[in-house]
C-alpha cells in the first residue's frame, strides 16, 4: 500500500509540524478482551447491590429480551443517520412507526425521531415557542417542584436566546391555578407542566392550564411519558401544544440516567421543529418508501439558522421503544400504567400505617412514586435504609420519595418492614 502511494513510511503521510507532534507516552496500557471484561466486571462489581425505590425521571420498567436481541442486530447498531434512504428503508420505517405510535399517544401531528433526554427536549420546546409564538417577551414558566437537574439544563438551553425562566407555584403537588394566573403576563411564551410530576402526582388541571395559556397565547408544553400517556387524557384534546418527556421508560432499563427525549408538537410548527423527521414518499418503482424530510431545518444545511444544533440523537433507543410498545400493545401498556397507579397507592397506604410517617403527602392520584413526610430527619432514615440495602430519594429535611417501578412485591414487603424498623 505504501508503495502505491509512493512513500516509504506511513509517518511521511502526516503533515504535522514538528513543534506540535506528540512524542510522549499516554500511559494507557493495552489489555486483551478477557482482561478488560474481568476488569470492568470487577469495577462494576464494586457497586452495591441495592433495591432501588428511585425514580424522579429515570425508571426501571422491565425490557423483554426480544428487544435486546432484535435491536442488537448489527445492521441497526452499526448504521448511521439515514442520509441514503434507499439502503436504510428498514431503520426509516422503524422510526416512522415510532413517530406514529407517539402521535397516537399525544394526539399531536409531529413527533421527531428523538432528542437526548427530557430536559433537553424541554429546552428545545422553549426555543420552539420563541420562534412560533408572537408574545411580547419570551419568559418561560416552570413548576416550583421541578427537579433542579432539569431546570439546570433548561437554563442552559435558553441562555443564548436570553429567555428568563421563572417558577409558578403548585398546590398539593398540582398546578396552583390562581398562582399560575398571577405569574402569567403577555411576556410568557411557554408554560411547562408535568403529569406525572417530579413528585409522582397526576396533574388534574391540564384542561384549565390549556385555557389559560390560550388566553395569553403562550405555548403549553406538557412533560409526560408513553406509559402514563397510554392512560391519561390525550394531551392535544386539552389544549397542549407540545409534549416532551422521557420516552425511554420503555425500551431501556435503568442505565445510570441515559435517556431519550420525546418531542411532539402541532403540525402547524413542523417547519420550526428541532431534530429529525421521517416522512413517506414514493420511490422510482412507485412503491411506498421512507426518507428523512424537511432537512432544510437542520444544522448541516441551515447552519446558524437551523432550528437546533442536534445531529446525533438517540435513534437506536427510539427503535427499542417502538419495539417494546408494539410488543406490549395497548392492553400491555395500559397494564403497566394501571400497575404504576395501583402499586404506588398500595405502597403509600402501607407506609402511612407506619408510625412517624405520613404518605402520600399529596392528596392526589400518583403514578409510580409518591412523597412521604417523616417525623424523624429524612436523611437519617435514608441512611438507615441504605444500610439495609434500600435506596430512596431524600427531598428535604422531612421528606422522602419512594418509587415502585422495577421493585418486586417481595422486595416491597421487605422494604415496608425495614422502614418500620428504622423509624421505630
Amino acid at each position, binding site marked *: 500500500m505504501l508503495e502505491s502511494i509512493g512513500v516509504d513510511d506511513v509517518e511521511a503521510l502526516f503533515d*504535522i509540524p514538528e513543534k506540535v507532534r506528540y512524542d510522549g507516552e499516554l500511559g494507557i496500557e493495552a489489555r486483551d478482551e478477557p482482561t478488560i471484561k474481568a476488569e*470492568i466486571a470487577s469495577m462494576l462489581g464494586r457497586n452495591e447491590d441495592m433495591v432501588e425505590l428511585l425514580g424522579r425521571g429515570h425508571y426501571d420498567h422491565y425490557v423483554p429480551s426480544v428487544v435486546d436481541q432484535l435491536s442488537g442486530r448489527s445492521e441497526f447498531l*452499526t448504521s448511521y443517520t439515514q442520509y441514503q434512504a434507499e439502503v436504510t428503508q428498514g431503520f426509516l420505517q422503524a422510526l416512522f412507526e415510532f413517530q406514529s405510535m407517539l402521535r397516537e399517544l399525544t394526539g399531536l401531528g409531529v413527533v421527531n425521531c428523538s432528542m*437526548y433526554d427530557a430536559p433537553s427536549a424541554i429546552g428545545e420546546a422553549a426555543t420552539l415557542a420563541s420562534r412560533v409564538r408572537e408574545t411580547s417577551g419570551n419568559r418561560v414558566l416552570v413548576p416550583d417542584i421541578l427537579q433542579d437537574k432539569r431546570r439546570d439544563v433548561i437554563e442552559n438551553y435558553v441562555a443564548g436566546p436570553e429567555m428568563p425562566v421563572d417558577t409558578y407555584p403548585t398546590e398539593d403537588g398540582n398546578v396552583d391555578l390562581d398562582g399560575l394566573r398571577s405569574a402569567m403576563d403577555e411576556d410568557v411564551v411557554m408554560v411547562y407542566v408535568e403529569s406525572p410530576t417530579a413528585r409522582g402526582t397526576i396533574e388534574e388541571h391540564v384542561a384549565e392550564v390549556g385555557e389559560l395559556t390560550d388566553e395569553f397565547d403562550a405555548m403549553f408544553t406538557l412533560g409526560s411519558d408513553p406509559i402514563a400517556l397510554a392512560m391519561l387524557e390525550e394531551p392535544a384534546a386539552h389544549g397542549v401544544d407540545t409534549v416532551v418527556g422521557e420516552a425511554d421508560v420503555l425500551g431501556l*432499563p435503568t442505565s445510570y440516567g441515559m435517556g431519550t427525549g420525546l418531542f411532539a408538537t402541532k403540525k402547524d410548527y413542523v417547519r420550526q421543529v428541532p431534530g429529525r423527521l421521517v416522512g413517506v*414518499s414514493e420511490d422510482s418503482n412507485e412503491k411506498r418508501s421512507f426518507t428523512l424530510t424537511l432537512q432544510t431545518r437542520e444544522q448541516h444545511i441551515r*447552519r446558524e439558522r437551523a432550528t437546533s444544533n442536534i445531529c446525533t440523537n438517540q435513534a437506536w433507543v427510539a427503535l427499542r421503544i417502538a419495539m417494546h410498545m408494539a410488543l406490549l400493545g395497548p392492553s400491555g401498556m395500559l397494564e403497566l400504567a394501571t400497575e404504576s397507579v395501583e402499586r404506588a397507592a398500595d405502597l403509600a397506604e402501607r407506609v402511612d400505617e407506619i408510625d412517624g410517617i405520613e404518605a402520600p403527602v399529596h392528596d392526589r392520584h400518583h403514578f409510580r412514586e409518591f412523597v412521604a413526610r417523616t417525623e424523624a430527619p429524612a436523611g437519617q432514615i435514608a441512611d438507615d435504609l441504605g444500610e439495609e440495602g434500600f435506596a430512596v430519594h431524600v427531598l428535604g429535611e422531612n421528606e422522602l420519595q419512594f418509587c415502585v417501578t422495577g421493585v418486586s412485591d417481595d422486595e416491597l414487603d421487605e422494604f415496608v418492614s425495614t422502614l418500620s424498623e428504622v423509624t421505630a
Partner: protein
Amino acid sequence: MTRFEQARYIQDEERYEPLLSEKDSTTVDVDGPLPDDLTRDDLTMPEISEPELARHYTRLSEMTYGVDNGPYPLGSCTMKYNPSFTEDVAADPSGFVHPDRPDETVQGNLELMYTLQRYLAKIGGMEAVTLQPPAGAAGEFTGIMITRAYHEYHGEDQRDEVIVPDTAHGTNFASAAMGGYEVIEIPSSDDGRVHLDALEDALSENTAALMLTNPNTLGLFEKDIVEVADMIHDAGALLYYDGANLNALLGRARPGDMGFDIMHYNVHKTFATPHGGGGPGAGPVGVCSDLAEFLPNPQVCKDGDEYTTCEPEHTIGKVHGFQGNWLVLIKAFAYIARLGDEGLRDTGAKAVLNANYLGEQLDIDIPFRPFHHEFVASGDRDATDFAKRMLDYGVHPPTTKFPHIVKDALMTEPTESENRHSLDRLASAFNDVMGDSDEELAGAPNYASAGRVDQTKAAKDLILSWQDLDAE
C-alpha cells in the same frame, strides 16, 4: 464489477414491508384505577406477537445498511468497525444503576467514569474532561456555554462573536448560535486551510472563540495552528477544537499541545461506539486548566481511594439530566483499554494510510492535499447521483456536497477498519461510477431495497405518521 443486492423482498405492489399498524392494531377501552375525567376513553395501538415482532424487525434490519454490511466511508463520521466485546461489557447488569444513588454505593460506575475522564484528558492533552454531553453537537454547545461563562467571569460580556471557517461542520455554526453568539464565517485560503489574514480581520475585542476542526474537513492539517492559537489568545479569545476528525491524530498530536482550550470528543466516531442509526453517541468535553472550574456539574473526582461527584466552582450547570449516555461511555472505555498507547497510534496511522491508498486508486480529482484520514474528491458529476450510483456497487457512498467550497464534493473517510481488498473494491466503485453514463447515474440505485426515493414529494406531502397516511 461487484454488485450487491440488498434484501429486496416485495410484499405487494404498493409497499416493501407493511407497517406495524397494517399488521395488527387493537383498540381497547381505558377503564383503570383513575377517575374518568383524568383518562382517555380508548387507546389504539399495534399489537404484535413476539414471533411477528421478530420477523418484522429482522426484515427491517435486512433493509438497513450498516458498517457490518460493507464499507461506509461517510466523511467526518468515522464509520469504523464496532468491536463486539464492547457490547458485552456494556450489558453488565451491575452497571445498570439509578443515577440518583449515593456516590458510595456506585463506586464502580464512578471509577469507570473517572478513568475514562483521565484517558480522554491524556489523549487530548487537556486538563479535565466532562462525560456529560450526550452527542458531539451537545459537546460543542457545552464548550460554547463554558466560553460564555469564562468571558462573563472575566467581565468581558462584550464578546459576542464566534468565528467559524467556511469548511466547518454545520453543527459549529448552529451550536454557537444556540449559545447566543453571532457567527462570523471566514473564507478558507486557496490551500484549504485557515486564511490568516481573514482571521486577523475577523478578530476583535468582541471575539469569544474560534471553532476549528483539525485536520479540517478537507483532511488537511492546519499547519499554522500555533500561529492561529497565538492570534486567538492575544485577542483574549478561546480556541475550540471540534473532535470529529481526532481519529487521524490519535497518539501523534494532541489538541491541548496545539493551543486549543476546549475540545469535544466524538466517542461514536473516534472510539468505535456504534452509531445506532443516528445515535446515541457521546460528546465528552475537555478543557485546559483555566477552564476546569467551569465544567458541567457534577464532575467525577477522586478523593483518596474513593470516587465522588463534585461541583466545579464556576460550573455552567448541567447539559444533560443526569450523567450523559452511560452505556455509550462504557463501550468507549473498553475500546480505549483494548488499544492502549500503541493501538491508538496505530489506529491513526492506518486511518491515514487507508485514506491515502484509496485516494491514490481513484480516477477522480482530489483538489486539496496532503490529506490525512479523509479527502474530498470532486468528480464533476452531480454528487447526489454519484452517491446513488455507488449504492449499486454495494458500498455506502461518502458524505456529499460538503464542504461547500468543493464543487460536487465527495467527502470520503474509509477509516482504519477496511483492508486492502475492501479499499480496492471501494476504489473500483468510485471509478466505475465515473465511467457510467449520466442516465445510469440518474436511474440509480437499482439494487438497493428501494429505488430512488422522491425527496421533493416527501417534503411537499409531509406524511409523518400512519395517521397522516390513513387521512390521505
